[in-house]
């Protein structure tokens, strides 16, 4: 792009969003070039610059987003939507330059609807601010991911995020009632006013998880819930993983706890020991159950009876309460894995008849093919039909050459995810795909991928929306 053309485009973007909300400054380009993706962090750590946007724009609403997308389509320049930048998959990195569209000025909370129990909000609102707004009226969003304080409503929707209380309250895709979306051609659309209907396929679920490749989510109605009368915790120690899986599966046929987290013996001996203080060998499982006290009393009895059948040692409430208090502390610098280590979380999901095998096969594949890597896991989101593995690899001795480090990183990821796919798992449970796993989407979906490709081609014929993400 010539300087002249760049200046021309900048003036049009300034006209669309206001001069102070369109930047070509180095500070804005740099801060939008690195997200939570390990490769972008490693690249910056080695003193290398990640790809930079040409323009960073911060529109105030759907109307301004529409103008930006029309300009981008005319000049055929890429648009990468940026919410909080806390994604782990490189989804927000402007790998092809062009425009970064930062959504955080679209942070207005429009309505707290206590009759229908939702908050209508701009997609750029930080989720914690939604939680505060709900709390002020005595409610909660019940969305408590580790990135609650850093990520936006749109960011969670874009990659199908999840919080720790998902078993009872659902994933982010269960919490969205309706969306406002700006299509790549600049048209502003609304999905249906109710999320359950028989008026064709679910438009919400086309855009949720599309990672900015099909349009920009600008507004959303997100569910809120009554605060529970009581919330109780119970920690358990299992001597083998099979018993733990079976206990969890059986419990889910009876009632839905809010939190269910099972840590494998390796993670129990490391993270759980460090943060929660469990100094025992085995697999630690934390269960939270909450709601109306009368029901919680019944649930507690069912929980204890069920887990006793699987020889779980009841550790009482202390560790669970500590876990709840520290649930975000795990992710602060100094507690999490950090550079110079290489690490990744290959969260996958599968039905119960496959999940344990996937865990053992992935562990074997990583530890056999990459002896320099450690493998730890926990199982943090459970359903009646299956659960997810939050499995991590950690490499302490990382190649100094950044390109070599990148290759090793991608090799480990490909090996792990292909093993999951081969055994009935999914590319990803809740971190999304981004540029990190795009190459594996076709392996996951086979001919079904043409559905996504067809949508992409029809909605974004110039291919400007978040190119090279989601395998599209």
């Amino acid at each position, binding site marked *: 792009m010539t300087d002249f053309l760049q200046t021309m485009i900048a003036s049009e973007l300034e006209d669309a969003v206001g001069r102070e909300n369109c930047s070509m400054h180095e500070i804005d380009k*740099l801060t939008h070039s690195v997200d939570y993706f390990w490769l972008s962090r490693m690249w910056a750590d080695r003193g290398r610059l990640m790809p930079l946007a040409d323009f960073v724009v911060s529109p105030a609403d759907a109307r301004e987003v529409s103008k930006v997308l029309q300009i981008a389509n005319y000049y055929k320049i890429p648009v990468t939507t940026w919410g909080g930048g806390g994604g782990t998959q490189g989804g927000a990195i402007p790998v092809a330059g062009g425009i970064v569209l930062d959504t955080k000025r679209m942070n207005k909370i429009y309505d707290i609807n206590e009759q229908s129990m939702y908050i209508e909000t701009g997609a750029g609102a930080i989720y914690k601010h939604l939680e505060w707004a709900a709390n002020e009226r005595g409610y909660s969003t019940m969305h408590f991911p580790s990135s609650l304080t850093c990520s936006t409503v749109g960011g969670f929707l874009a990659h199908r995020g999840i919080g720790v209380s998902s078993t009872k309250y659902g994933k982010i895709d269960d919490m969205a009632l309706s969306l406002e979306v700006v299509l790549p051609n600049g048209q502003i659309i609304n999905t249906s006013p109710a999320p359950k209907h028989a008026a064709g396929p679910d438009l919400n679920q086309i855009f949720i998880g599309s990672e900015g490749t099909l349009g920009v989510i600008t507004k959303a109605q997100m569910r809120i819930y009554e605060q529970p009368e009581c919330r109780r915790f119970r920690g358990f120690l299992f001597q083998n993983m099979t018993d733990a899986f079976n206990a969890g599966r059986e419990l889910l046929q009876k009632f839905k706890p809010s939190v269910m987290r099972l840590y494998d013996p390796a993670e129990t001996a490391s993270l759980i020991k460090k943060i929660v203080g469990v100094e025992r060998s085995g697999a630690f499982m934390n269960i939270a159950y909450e709601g109306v006290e009368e029901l919680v009393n019944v649930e507690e009895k069912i929980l204890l009876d069920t887990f006793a059948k699987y020889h779980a040692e009841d550790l009482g409430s202390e560790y669970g309460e500590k876990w709840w208090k520290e649930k975000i502390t795990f992710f602060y610098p100094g507690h999490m894995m950090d550079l110079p280590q290489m690490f990744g979380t290959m969260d996958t999901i599968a039905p119960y008849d496959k999940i344990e095998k996937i865990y053992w096969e992935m562990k074997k594949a990583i530890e056999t093919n990459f002896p320099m890597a450690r493998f730890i896991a926990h199982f943090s989101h459970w359903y009646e039909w299956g659960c997810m593995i939050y499995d991590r690899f950690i490499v302490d001795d990382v190649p100094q050459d950044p390109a070599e480090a990148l290759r090793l990183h991608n090799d480990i990821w490909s090996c792990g995810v292909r093993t999951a796919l081969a055994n009935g798992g999914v590319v990803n449970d809740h971190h999304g795909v981004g540029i990190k796993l795009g190459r594996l989407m076709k392996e996951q979906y086979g001919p079904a991928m043409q559905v996504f490709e067809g949508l992409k081609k029809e909605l974004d014929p110039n291919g400007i929306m978040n190119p090279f993400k989601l395998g599209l």
Partner: protein
Amino acid sequence: MYFNKKSSDTMDACRFCWMCRHICPIGNATGQERNTARARALTLSLVKRDAAKLDGDIVDNLYECALCGGCTNDCATGWDPVSLTKDARLAAAINGQLPSYVEKLLDNHDKTGNIYGRTCKDSILSDIIKTLPGKADILLFLGADAVYHTPAKAIEAIDLLKKSGTVFTVFDDEPDSGYSYDFLIGSAEETRSMMAATADKLNGTGALKIICYDPADAKVFRHEYKEYGIRLNAEIITYPAFIKSLISDNILQIKKSETVFTFQDPALLARDLEDTESARYVLDACGNRREMLQCGKGTMLGGNLIMNEYLPNVMKLVADNRIANALHVSAENLVTASPAEYLLLRAAAGDKINVITLEEAVLSCL
């Protein structure tokens, strides 16, 4: 580019961590990614690695932080982005990379003794100060923000002390505490020299107790002076803490009213000086109190007058957000305890809520 070890460690810890984003009053107001502790740490870490230079808009970004300490207070691991930002401002000063608007404020101080460049004080305030004893065991330190921006409030602060029968003095030519220099250029030699000169003047009064009307001054007297090895002989006490003692000792007789107050904790008072209860004690004596979102140590900044000199639009957005928080609790009065927040919140409030000072609340209940 050289950064000390603490700063170097902080930038490497914070550069990929967004956990405090929700608490930043500036980032929440502007919606700009650069207004996060993480963005500042990331760019400084790139400077450290010679991938970027500490100049231009990277330096500008250092001055988009109010140093309110919300991020530091919120960090579960104890990292301190405020200290990093101050260190980077010092590095920019040493390298001759200060923005022109910062140079202008420093020039103002050279010429007028205050960074606002004001050449004369409010005449009524001057006249009232002249009526006070020239020497006393208690010195009321008003601070530059009060003297030059809210003199009427300074007069009320004096009035309340007089009504309590307290014998005190106020400087007719009050020296700068050094807060403004510390804010702009950190621990530079100029800052330390200014603080040392002010300490000499304060010690020369023989006062046993210094009541700081502005928490910013109390903060540097208590912390930075000690850090820089500058000794103050007098006890430093904040204005809310002193008023509290007057009420609890029954020196001030308060008639409790039905008025509803909500208190805007000044960030430096709540976090650096760890006093969240004095003002609440006073307000509880005066009427009823409701707490707004993010109060106490978790307070959100309502405004900063130094930044208002070069980022007035941002300060307006910051104040607008805090007014919105206050309106949510349906209080009649938003009570402030820093001149900067009084001025900026009052401007943002319009007729939506009464913005008053702590002394106004007390004076209305005598």
